[in-house]
């Protein structure tokens, strides 16, 4: 494999993996902060138990997000040094600001929060988890400012052989940020809601001692989940409309729309093949007339551009080349994301319905399926990023720089192969350890106290040989 393929693969592996942890950090941090606030205001010990239980899971997840995040900060320079040179004047700033404003805030105050239970007043202690939650939200903002520049470059000029920032305000006001950021925040809320719903349901099925805490958690998560999923869907809708305007090629790929249509139908399912002229033919397809036009423009007519027309248009603007992103993976990623999102919307509303009917502690069939539904947000988050990043191909910065122009030229392919294998193996092992711990703590709330208790003598003896 060549350096470009290996570097892309490594960036994909490390970024997808990093984003397994980020949405839960964003959503659960806020939820734990709300729980602790309820504890401070009411003095009800059950809220404290909830805070500690979900806080422990939050912290395990947070650690994984932190350590995989360092790789992200470094590999622009390591693997994408030409990109860093050309775009660094713009792209470096939000990354540095993210570290300065967000990383310091979240990591410093998380340390204080974990260790400060007996050292701070109740209110001050609750404030520290709020600062952590604010830090994670700020972190998401700045990294999405950077990412949005790659999707929709604004506030810059090409001079001195590179892209230079001309308007920092435009970077922050980038319309892409303001659809992408709420979408990511809402998906974080959704992820946390389904994480809490799934684990609470597992406990409500068994109703061991202390289960009441999970009833309350379930009810909170039902509300949280409805808020999250509704926002995800609404914002996602405006995001799609924005995409039709500024990255029509991405939308065409997401829809596998080869030729422009007016009104454009929405494909629910499609199998196709290339005919003898290398033109795409649908073999089997279910389409809803006019729905894509509606999604794009809120009315059942209006032209949505197809891949072939855009390709011809881009050849005129940017010269010969292939400007089509990989269609199949974008098409199916879009369906997986939207499908998982809509399913979560239904589940969240049903959970909320149970809360209002006062049946949320007793719906056994529902409790049985919810633990599996924990996977849904992860599916949606991951395929959502597939669409965002693969739909941007072949560009690294839309219209300005192609991916192959950004890769480091001086790093041998064998070295990148080594790092790719090393990161993948280590990440695999850590995932196993992480899931093992999360399962153990999720299933046994008392585990927290067992760990804090003194180690048995046998454990101490085991270390005397070191």
């Amino acid at each position, binding site marked *: 494999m060549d350096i470009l393929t290996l570097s892309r693969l490594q960036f994909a592996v490390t970024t997808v993996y990093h984003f397994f942890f980020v949405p839960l950090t964003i959503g659960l941090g806020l939820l734990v902060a709300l729980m602790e606030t309820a504890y401070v205001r009411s003095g009800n010990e059950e809220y404290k138990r909830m805070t500690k239980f979900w806080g422990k899971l939050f912290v*395990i997840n947070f*650690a994984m997000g932190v*350590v*995989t995040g*360092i*790789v992200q900060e*470094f590999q*622009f*320079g*390591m693997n994408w*040094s*030409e990109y*860093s*040179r050309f775009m*660094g*004047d713009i792209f*470096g*700033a939000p*990354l*540095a*600001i993210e*570290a*300065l*404003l967000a*990383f*310091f805030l979240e*990591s*410093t*105050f*998380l*340390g*204080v929060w*974990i*260790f*400060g239970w007996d050292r*701070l007043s109740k209110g001050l202690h609750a404030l520290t988890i709020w600062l952590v939650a604010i830090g994670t939200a700020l972190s998401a903002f700045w990294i999405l400012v950077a990412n949005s520049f790659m999707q929709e470059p604004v506030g810059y000029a090409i001079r001195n052989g590179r892209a*230079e*920032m*001309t308007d920092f305000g435009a970077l922050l006001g980038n319309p892409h940020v303001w659809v992408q950021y709420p979408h990511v925040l809402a998906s974080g809320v959704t992820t946390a809601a389904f994480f809490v719903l799934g684990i609470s349901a597992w406990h409500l099925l068994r109703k061991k001692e202390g289960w009441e805490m999970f009833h309350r958690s379930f009810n909170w998560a039902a509300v949280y989940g409805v808020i999250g999923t509704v926002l995800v869907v609404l914002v996602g809708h405006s995001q799609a409309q924005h995409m039709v305007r500024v990255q029509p090629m991405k939308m065409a790929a997401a829809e596998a729309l080869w030729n422009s249509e007016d009104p454009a139908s929405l494909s629910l399912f499609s199998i196709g093949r290339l005919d003898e002229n290398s033109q795409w033919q649908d073999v089997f397809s279910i389409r809803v007339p006019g729905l894509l036009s509606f999604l794009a423009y809120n009315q059942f007519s209006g032209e949505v551009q197809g891949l072939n027309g855009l390709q011809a248009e881009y050849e005129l603007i940017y010269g010969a080349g292939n400007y089509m992103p990989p269609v199949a993976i974008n098409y199916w990623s879009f369906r997986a994301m939207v499908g998982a999102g809509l399913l979560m919307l239904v589940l969240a509303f049903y959970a909320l319905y149970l809360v209002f009917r006062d049946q949320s502690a007793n719906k056994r069939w529902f409790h049985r399926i919810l633990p599996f539904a924990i996977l849904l947000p992860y599916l949606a988050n991951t395929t959502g990023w597939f669409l965002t990043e693969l739909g941007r191909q072949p560009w690294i910065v839309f219209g300005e720089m192609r991916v192959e122009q950004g890769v*480091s030229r*001086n*790093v041998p392919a064998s*070295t*990148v192969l080594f*790092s790719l294998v*090393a*990161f993948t193996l*280590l990440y695999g092992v*850590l995932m196993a350890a*992480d899931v093992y*711990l999360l399962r*153990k*703590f999720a299933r046994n709330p008392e585990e927290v106290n067992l*760990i804090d208790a003194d180690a048995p003598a046998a*454990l*101490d003896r*085991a*270390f*005397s040989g*070191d």
Partner: protein
Amino acid sequence: MELNSLWFTLIAVLFIGFFFLEGFDYGVGILMPFLGRNDRERRVIINTIGPFWDGNEVWLITAGGAMFAAFPHWYATMFSGFYLALVLMLLALIVRGVAFEFRSKDRHPRWRRLWDWLLCGGSFIPALLWGVALANVVRGVPIDAEMTYVGTFFDLINPLSLVAGVAALVAFMLHGAIFLSLKTDGEVRARAEQAASRLWPVVAIVIALLVILGYTQTDIFRQLGINPGVSALGSGAALLAVGWLLRDKNYSWAFAAMGLHLALTIITVFRGLYPRVLVSSLDPAYSLTITNASSSEYTLQIMTIVALIFVPIVVLYQAWSYWVFRKRISAESKLEY
């Protein structure tokens, strides 16, 4: 001061923060399996840096981010050039960060012992590598006219960089031992004090060797002149003071003096480097400088405003967090990690 120099200074400040703070917590990580003889003692040692290690590490991440924002060519050339070394460092830092969180969350002795050694190794490797990296930045690495690193991993291995690596390693261990002398009690404290006393002469010898090699292998002291200036002399004096204060069992001041030694060492290195940021061993004209590697004036202005507001705020709340956890930790304390 014009902005390019200001950013050179700010990055030096971030590296000082990193060496000072992450220095002792790498040291504590390396020493942990040796000074902690049973599970409880090891937990005490880990808990001394428990609330801080993550915040300390952000100094490094911010230094990297600041290099990217202010001197993109420095970031691009150095990070792609030092690729393999950075991969090793990242692997170590990943394992280390997770080890803090995972280590005590299972009671199986084999689990705990495994994470203990990973935490130790995960602190050892970056300590060594930062010494190696910094020495090479000053000594010079093969960089061509296009600002591209054209050497291999093995160009980074030379007598100077190896000695610098060992110097960073033992200095961090000493810094960590002094920190533990301040933060623990009982047997662990006694062992930490003993370790500090034994480590000091080693540090003194290695640093002396590093200075000699610095004279012969780099132009850093030629840059500074016959009189290397307050920072270099002060750095040496601070290290001597550490030895003297350790003999007096005055650990608070020894810690301050050690911190001063690390800070002045970084200042000396950056002063010797200025106005270059990465020296080319092929041709001095190819060296990256604060002018040819920098961002535009506009970007530097924006970043300056952000940094001047937020760096002091960060320093204040991190200092507050150290004040909150100022008490010694003993075997009787409630432990989180």
